[in-house]
């Protein structure tokens, strides 16, 4: 039992992998969410259908199934992925699908008069989106994006089942090496909670900064 510092080191290694997965997963989820969410609002039938199919598929099957499919089935059809790549891919695409609905509903929540003003000013669709609609919609998205990021953090624990040495995996290692169960799992729960709180704090700060000076305009 004298080796607690070693075990703490193991857990911190695991925490680093968890953070890495969360950051990379979010980095993939964010552009995907915007692409699919705006795709849902496209003028073109084919783009809307494609975006809808992507969203329904990834929201309809569970992250667990997607991860196993990415890890076990993709290599069979010629895409060899490391566990980390499979994890980032599955997490990013899954959370991206949820994020897409956030993007869509945020853009749709912007008042009609803003859309009409874009037309009146003769902006192209892209200009209207880029300079008028998205800057307003983004503020609406931030709190929900924060929740999505926390969901992603929690979902990273699943990668321990495809042998990635994340926080949950290391807890199992410590459990099997020390025979102690309560301490490793409680430690890991506290670390996850601390990470989730950090995300939530970061998002609140971001929201405050983005809404600075908008008090009179936003309801």
């Amino acid at each position, binding site marked *: 039992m004298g080796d607690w510092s070693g075990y703490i080191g193991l857990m911190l290694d695991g925490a680093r992998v968890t953070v890495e997965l969360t950051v990379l997963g979010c980095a993939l989820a964010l552009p995907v969410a915007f692409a699919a969410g705006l795709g849902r609002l496209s003028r073109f039938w084919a783009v809307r259908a494609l975006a809808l199919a992507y969203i329904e598929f990834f929201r309809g099957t569970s992250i*667990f199934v*997607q991860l*196993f499919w990415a890890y076990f089935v993709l290599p*069979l059809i010629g895409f060899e992925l490391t566990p980390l790549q499979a994890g980032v891919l599955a997490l990013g695409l899954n959370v991206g699908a949820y994020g897409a609905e956030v993007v869509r509903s945020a853009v749709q929540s912007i008042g009609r008069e803003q859309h009409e003003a874009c037309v009146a000013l003769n902006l192209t669709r892209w200009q209207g989106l880029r300079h008028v609609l998205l800057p307003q919609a983004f503020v609406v998205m931030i709190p929900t994006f924060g929740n999505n990021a926390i969901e992603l953090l929690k*979902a990273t624990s699943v990668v321990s089942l495809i042998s990635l040495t994340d926080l949950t995996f290391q807890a199992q290692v410590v459990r099997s090496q020390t025979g102690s*169960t309560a301490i490793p799992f409680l430690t890991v729960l506290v670390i996850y*909670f601390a990470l*989730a709180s950090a995300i939530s704090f970061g998002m609140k700060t971001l929201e405050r900064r983005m809404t600075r000076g908008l008090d009179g305009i936003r309801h």
Partner: protein
Amino acid sequence: MEWDWAFVREIMPTLLDGLKITVLATVLGSALAAVVGLAFALLRRSPNRLVSRITAFLVEFIRGTPLLVQLYFLFYVLPGAGILLSPLTAGVIGLGVHYATYMAEVFRAGIDNTPRGQWEAAKACNLTAVQTWQHIILPQAIPPMIPALANYFVAMFKETPLLSAITVVELMSQARSVANFNYRYLEPMTLVGVLFLAISLIAVPALHLLERRFRRYR
């Protein structure tokens, strides 16, 4: 690798057996989540500051940590304290308590949306607290929440594969065991995905129906 229909026919009964456990876990988990969620929501509103603070922290904590670790905790730690749970029981408790924290939020919103006048009328009629909740507040607050609650039931359904990590023999673990046994991953993994997608896609129109049915109460 070629798709093999004969293999699909061979493994389908095993997978459907697993699906039964998946559905069972979802139904039991949902029932538990609804009850515990309501308890969380009520305790959160307790006039006793200590009770409401502790409940708030507990809810935040459970919601901020992964279900998988919570399942491990129930499955590995509780036996040390002398509480032996079967895998399915541990799984249902894990799912139920985890989703109860989300449901508490739905209940809270529903209760807060009940007009003040209803509370005042209950007081004017000299109803006790229990009578007020039972006959006035909850019957009005619950119907509008049903679509949101159903949404979380579907979300819970999609999280049940995690139970395979604590050796519940549900759909995912059946698929993994036939895959490992035959060393063929394509069909079992794809079929699990297809089954989940099929049930989720059935659930989407059902949710819309619920939403339309209960919106009238508002």
